[in-house]
């Protein structure tokens, strides 16, 4: 392995090195501020090492170092950093030994970044498992409460089953095509047309496994329970980074192996997209718990995102569709983190019990205007109101679907978004209830890193909606 290849993998190396250092530090000298500092330093270093440099080269058959991978590495590192900032305060109030939590967060981030680099089914599986296994422990971290444990068990059993299913699918793919690397599979698939049955079974298993990770309907049943049970910062990380990472590798696989040519597969994805939009939006209507509502809304958003993947089937639209998906992922990550960040700050001082019911945020506007603004911006962005990141993301999706003439999916998108307005606005309405009418007293964490991260997220979501031109130009340049 040459030095340039090592340099191309610098973000992954930095994260891995940081993990080892943090692990040693915890083993020898338990000190929370030091751990948090080291983790933040590692993530910052990872972010800076992932600045785009225009290289594009395979490093071993497993990984592909290019600007696409670097872009999402940067996104995941930043998202993990924000999660870490919110976690310090969240865990601090719950009085466990929180050092290992941050170690697990780093491990999970490394898994996500490996997925961004993955160019081979083996690295895909490695990244996915690294991401998920660290997440099991993260979800169950607050060990005094029953809900996190239940959520972690649910996620462990179901996610492991999904991984096994996908793995079986990979094995069948290997049997049919004789290759596990994305580009090798491209040629292998052309020659393997005779083994149609094996390929079909493999496709079903892989789609089921990955759709579970993306929580597309009808593989979504775990989502609300796990989101509700997991600590809020972890739910945010799970909803944003772990989904975005799987989608990122999926896009690379589809492009490199040209899976778009299988019309049956694309139709199946279109059905999944439509189902997710309908199921997610309709069930979100019924929720009184904000975390469950966000879980269903994330199902719907994954449905919107799948439209873009379906639209990428036509070669003319592919570059635009992938650009659309990339922007959507960035916007969705920032917005989701913002929503869960507020939930993490909410309910300080209730000795571990989370306060995520709608009535818990009554009158938030008047008591904590800054935090209320954070939640309002997040909700408006999820609903796709202009001047927020969510609008431009939706604009991109509509553009991609319209250029591919997917009218049916577009219709579902319009209906789904219209339904979505109701449950997003309900949150805003509850926040604006007058304090004298509804004597709820939401307590807010006043911890400065959390507050600073909150303002940072507001600025990011608004900036992505108002002045995203530099990012758009960058996306267009790396994807063309």
């Amino acid at each position, binding site marked *: 392995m040459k030095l340039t290849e090592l340099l191309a993998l610098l973000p992954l190396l930095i994260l891995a090195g940081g993990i080892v250092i943090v692990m040693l530090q915890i083993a020898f000298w338990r000190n929370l501020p030091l751990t948090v500092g080291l983790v933040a330093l590692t993530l910052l270093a990872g972010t800076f090492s992932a600045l785009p440099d225009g290289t594009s080269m395979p490093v071993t058959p497993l990984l592909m170092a290019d600007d696409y991978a670097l872009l999402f590495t940067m996104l995941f590192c930043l998202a993990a950093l924000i999660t870490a900032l919110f976690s310090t305060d969240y865990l601090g109030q719950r009085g466990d030994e929180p050092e290992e939590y941050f170690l697990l967060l780093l491990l999970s981030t490394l898994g996500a970044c490996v997925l961004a680099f993955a160019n081979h089914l083996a690295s895909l599986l490695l990244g996915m498992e690294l991401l998920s296994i660290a997440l099991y422990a993260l979800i169950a971290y607050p060990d005094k409460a029953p809900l996190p444990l239940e959520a972690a068990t649910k996620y462990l059993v179901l996610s492991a089953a999904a991984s096994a299913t996908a793995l079986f699918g990979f094995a069948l793919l290997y049997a049919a095509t004789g290759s596990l690397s994305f580009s090798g599979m491209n040629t292998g698939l052309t020659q393997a047309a005779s083994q149609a049955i094996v390929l079909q079974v493999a496709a079903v298993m892989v789609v089921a496994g990955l759709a579970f990770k993306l929580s597309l309907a009808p593989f979504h049943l775990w989502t609300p329970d796990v989101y509700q049970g997991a600590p809020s910062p972890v739910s945010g990380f799970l909803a944003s980074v772990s989904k975005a990472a799987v989608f990122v590798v999926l896009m690379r696989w589809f492009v490199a192996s040209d899976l778009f040519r299988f019309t049956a597969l694309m139709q199946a994805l279109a059905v999944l997209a439509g189902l997710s939009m309908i199921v997610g939006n309709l069930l979100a209507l019924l929720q009184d718990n904000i975390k469950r509502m966000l879980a269903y809304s994330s199902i719907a958003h994954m449905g919107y995102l799948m439209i873009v993947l379906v639209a990428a089937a036509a070669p003319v639209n592919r570059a635009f569709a992938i650009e659309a998906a990339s922007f959507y992922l960035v916007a969705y990550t920032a917005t989701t983190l913002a929503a869960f960040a507020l939930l993490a700050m909410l309910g300080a001082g209730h000795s571990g019990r989370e306060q995520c019911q709608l009535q818990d945020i009554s009158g938030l506007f*008047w008591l904590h205007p800054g935090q209320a603004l954070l939640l309002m911006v997040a909700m408006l962005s999820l609903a796709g109101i202009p001047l927020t990141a969510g609008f431009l993301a939706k*604009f991109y999706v509509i553009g991609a679907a319209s250029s591919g003439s997917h009218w049916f999916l577009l219709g579902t998108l319009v209906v789904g978004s219209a339904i979505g307005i109701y449950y997003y606005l309900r949150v805003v309405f509850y926040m604006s209830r007058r304090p004298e009418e509804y004597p709820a007293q939401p307590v807010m964490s006043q911890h400065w890193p959390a507050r600073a991260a909150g303002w940072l997220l507001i600025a990011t979501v608004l900036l992505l909606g108002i002045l995203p031109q530099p990012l758009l130009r960058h996306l267009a340049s790396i994807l063309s």
Partner: protein
Amino acid sequence: MSLVLLLLILGLGGLLALLSERISANLPRIISLLVCALALLYLCYLAGTSTAGEDDWLLHLKTPWLPRLGISFELALDGLSLLMLALTLLLGLIAIAASWSEIDFRQGLFQANLLWTLTGVCGVFLALDLVLFFVFWEVMLVPMYLLIAIWGHEDKSRAAMKFFIFTQASGLLMLVAIVTLAWQHSAQAALSFSYSDLLGSELDPQTAYLLMLGFFLAFAVKLPAFPFHTWLPDAHTQAPTAGSVLLAGILLKTGAYGLIRFCLPLFPNASAQFAPIAMSLGAAGVIYGAILAFSQSDFKRLVAYSSVSHMGFVLLGLYAFNALAVQGAIMQMVAHGVSTAALFMIAGALQHRLHTRDMNRMGGLWAQAPRMGACAMFFAVASLGLPGLGNFIAEFLILAGLFAVQPWLTAIAALGLITAAVYALWMVQQTFQGSLRPELEIPDFGRREMITMAAMMLALLGLGLYPQPVLNLTQPVVDQLLSLDFTARSWL
């Protein structure tokens, strides 16, 4: 830059009003009034100094915003937008005056939302890039939603939600239409959402018809045209007085403006084909709104349904495609904006004094509040179309223009004038006339209220007695619109 400055004055003024609350609870309304007056003065200055350039716009500004997606920041002012802006800012002043002593909770945020709504509406009247137009179209909903949801009356949550969902869902259809139109256009030229680039795109007739429907639906919901009006009575009734004034006075006009500015010129052939349906909807709205208005016992609901009836005339006028009727429709937008705003202000004043909007519990108020009664009478007869006031000119022009095209439909729509007389007079009779009820003790209009009422009366009298300046102002816009080919008309 000057147009951006106008938006900035309003937007930053809102922020200032919000912050000034910390100094004194009464400061925000003063700041808000000053900001709105400043914006109006600035608009007058702009109108006085600018002359039509070679591209027919009084003022035109275009800078790239998101060049990657072909979206530009394009604002322009012509006679129609100037008229609408003047109406917006004037009614903005009136809305602030109407809410002067009504709001007792978070004045600063209230005034800020009011000014931000005005910013959004002004943006809608100025934007020429379709995406920018959509941005303003949606953004103005958020402060309006908050106005209803926070300061509204007993059933505010449902009303605010209904208002938002109706507009947003139809807006999404428009967004799909906008994007598809630009994509179709980009097959021949660079991707652009600019009005001037998209004008006259070659479209396959069926696509054009569907896209036109996308635009029409969004505007018809806002207008509101029958049968998309169901959000309106709730939103108007539950909103605080200033909110109702803004909703009825200017937010409804954005729908009509959108039809004139975008829907008709972008799809002339499809619009011509659709005209019979649009006109039928308009006529149905006129009659249906009038009948429902008559059967209301809630003062605000009555005025709200009368809006449905009057906005039906706008739809009729626009789709008649002749100069008289289109001029009439524009006139109706202005006159109806003023007269309905005044009626809502009276309704708000009554509710503030009596804590009810139920007309069965009123009666004989003239004796105690003669000034209020006289104002109500004036605006009621204005709204029923008394000659000499703006509404008469508007409805007369529409009917005169429409008669040349659709005599039967004109006859049906003219029935609306009779029913308008019935419900308007019924309203005055129920509230102000009849036997005196000694248990109702209300103070009359004060000086502040009389000044705002006088301003609106003068406006209506001006429009009714000497409408020529307004007609001259919008003449170029109408000429330009009618220079398009609307002949592909299928007859009923």
